[in-house]
């Protein structure tokens, strides 16, 4: 597509529930990144995919967080047993593998109540 698409744009869930956030990167971009942004802060790295594999998942806060990219395009970030502290904007970006500029999606605002 023309840009990075993230769905849903907003998600409200109850504490303890499971959520999935979807990212559809720019066609041809082999690198895909997930970041998390809390209010008043800069985005923080979660995980990076090169193709289908998670090349670097060092930013995932704990084992409740997991992400997949089974066909090397669309990625899903999965959060189990959500906690109120998981509330944030989850941002996805894509780029060519050599770096260059990132293109970010509009984000998914997750609110855990």
């Amino acid at each position, binding site marked *: 597509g023309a840009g990075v698409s993230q769905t849903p744009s907003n998600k409200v869930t109850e504490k303890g529930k499971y959520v999935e956030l979807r990212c559809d990167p720019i066609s041809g971009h082999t690198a895909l990144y997930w970041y998390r942004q809390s209010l008043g802060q800069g985005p923080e790295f979660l995980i990076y995919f*090169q193709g289908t594999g998670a090349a670097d998942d*060092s*930013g995932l806060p704990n084992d409740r967080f997991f992400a997949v990219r089974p066909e090397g395009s669309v990625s899903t970030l999965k959060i189990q047993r959500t906690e109120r502290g998981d509330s944030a904007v989850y941002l996805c970006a894509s780029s060519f593998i050599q*770096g*260059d*500029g990132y293109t*970010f999606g509009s*984000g998914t*605002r997750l609110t855990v109540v």
Partner: protein
Amino acid sequence: GIQVEQSPPDLILQEGANSTLRCNFSDSVNNLQWFHQNPWGQLINLFYIPSGTKQNGRLSATTVATERYSLLYISSSQTTDSGVYFCAVGTRGIQGAQKLVFGQGTRLTINP
């Protein structure tokens, strides 16, 4: 890990003014990007500039990698320039990943 510091944290200007935003980083990097986050939260890539100088309209950026800083210049500010400007630096991780570390941002407010 690498530290990124941006200054000033807040900047309020009148329309038409010029501004300079600074980004200092603590280690060698192979990727540096400037982003503008508009009031609706969208992050827009302004420059990919690991070194040298680039210009795009009223915006320009300079990175002096050997001295570990980058500057973003905004000339003849417009109200639409308001928002938060982030500097992000790239550290080469596993398999050459261009993982970015973001600064805390500079919040720019342009008053009409």
